[in-house]
């Protein structure tokens, strides 16, 4: 050391405690909504849910206009957009190069990734609440316009819907983590079910594996009130392949990747 006697700013301070996961998750939630692209994605998710309910009011027979009939269809389009949210939350750090700032402040990258996953899971759960809200609004509107407007709802549907949306958003995040490139991750994710159905249609031998691996097939029963043990098993297998594997491999890639 040189003979410089350090004045105030260099006095030894106790090492500042690192940010908690809750704090990091709050920051990541804020990042989902603080850019124009992110904000519009969230607004679109809400609008799409509302639009579906509106359509249902017009196309369903009066007697069929129940709470459940409004709730379930709204889950599909939202479930299509949530993966994009999951992908963007991860890949924007790389495409916009904010990873340089993020990892400078939190060098333990696995903490950042965990916070991001927690944030998108919370967003997915919130989307289920949005679906409930628009379905309730739809039911009230149906009553007002002479539809049945009954509040029949199978409560099994709620946890199923939560699993459905959380799985969707995490699959997106997994693809984002693995590919670390926005367009590549989105295109790959959206193409996958199509590729499955095309292949399964062409190649007989793929039909049985598709029942276990094609998530668009395995996740469908989640939107019905009852799921059999076999259906849970197939869902588990497909999610292990398309959710768990990309997440783990993507995490390893993100931890090792050079940030520049």
């Amino acid at each position: 050391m040189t003979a410089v006697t350090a004045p105030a700013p260099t006095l030894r301070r106790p090492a500042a405690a690192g940010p908690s996961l809750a704090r990091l998750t709050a920051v990541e939630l804020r990042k989902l909504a603080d850019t124009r692209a992110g904000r519009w994605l969230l607004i679109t998710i809400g609008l799409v849910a509302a639009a579906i309910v509106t359509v249902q009011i017009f196309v369903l027979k009066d007697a069929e206009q129940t709470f459940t009939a409004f709730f379930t269809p709204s889950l599909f389009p939202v479930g299509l957009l949530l993966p994009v949210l999951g992908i963007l939350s991860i890949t924007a750090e790389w495409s916009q190069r904010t990873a340089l700032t993020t990892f400078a402040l939190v060098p333990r990258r696995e903490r950042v990734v965990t916070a991001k996953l927690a944030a998108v899971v919370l967003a997915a759960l919130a989307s289920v609440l949005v679906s409930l809200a628009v379905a309730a609004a739809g039911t009230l509107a149906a009553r007002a316009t002479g539809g049945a407007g009954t509040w029949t709802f199978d409560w099994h549907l709620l946890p199923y819907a939560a699993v459905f949306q959380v799985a969707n958003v995490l699959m997106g995040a997994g693809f984002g983590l693995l590919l670390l490139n926005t367009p590549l991750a989105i295109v790959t994710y959206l193409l996958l079910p199509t590729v499955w159905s095309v292949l399964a249609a062409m190649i007989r031998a793929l039909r049985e594996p598709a029942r276990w691996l094609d998530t668009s097939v395995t996740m469908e029963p989640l939107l019905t009130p009852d799921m059999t043990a076999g259906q849970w098993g197939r869902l588990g297998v497909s999610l292990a392949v398309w959710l768990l594997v990309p997440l783990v491999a993507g995490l390893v890639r993100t931890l090792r990747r050079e940030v520049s």
Partner: protein
Amino acid sequence: MIEVDHLTKRYGPHTAVEDVSFRCEPGTVTGFLGPNGAGKSTTMRMICGMTAPSAGGAAVAGRPYRELPNPGREIGVLLDASAQHVGRTGREALTLAARTMGVERGQVAAKLDLVGLNETAARRRVGAYSLGMRQRLGLALALLGDPRVLILDEPANGLDPEGIFWMRGLLRDFADRGGTVLLSSHLLREVEAVADRLVVIGAGRVVAEGGKDELLAGAGTLVRARDQHALRLTLDRAGLPATAGTDGGYVVRAEPEAVGQAAADAGLVLTELRPAGSGGLEQLFLTLTAGASTKEAVR
């Protein structure tokens, strides 16, 4: 305090940084100099844990960067001013960092003010910022946690002369209050005015290191004569190693007295004879890094 210990980075057969070691002490500004592609940014990224070194290591405030629990409170980092989300406002970028570090909200406005980004600028999206404004925002980000160490990669890029002058004052003041500053540049003149110490890197290796004055003193003598050709011959005959400067004179690795004597013996009329000072350092910088930059150009 920054300690860089035998840092090496290889990409396949190409070695970007080779066995780089230096220290930055509290109270000093260290200029990290080298031509483009010499390995400055790679070295700084390794110090900040962005790039894993192939060998060696670095410690900031006594610990490897990745082991610091809340590095933003100890080290201010600006590695690339362009690395900001174009869709976020300047204030939002700082707010996110403040929340991550646990810095009170008032600091965001205070630091924006410090770097000269006014209310209007803070509300605009970073996409609409000029490079100079991004540098100011990056500096605000680096200063946000009131750190003791600053690591800045090419912070003067894109700043106007007034901005460069302002930044020098800011960094000097930071160091004078006991802070440690490491800043890189490919322009000697840019860091010369503010740095106490210099680390010069070429082709991934440290080629010169030391106090600025020390390096300046070793820079030799600048000499100019009416008859430059005769001067060259005289210097060669006297065995004084000379290199042609950028502006016509010669930089001689010898004391002014020896050079003057040789000229007098030959009966030459000198128009200038003085310690080379910064001109000599520039010369040194050019010769030290000439090979490196040519290689870079060819690669």
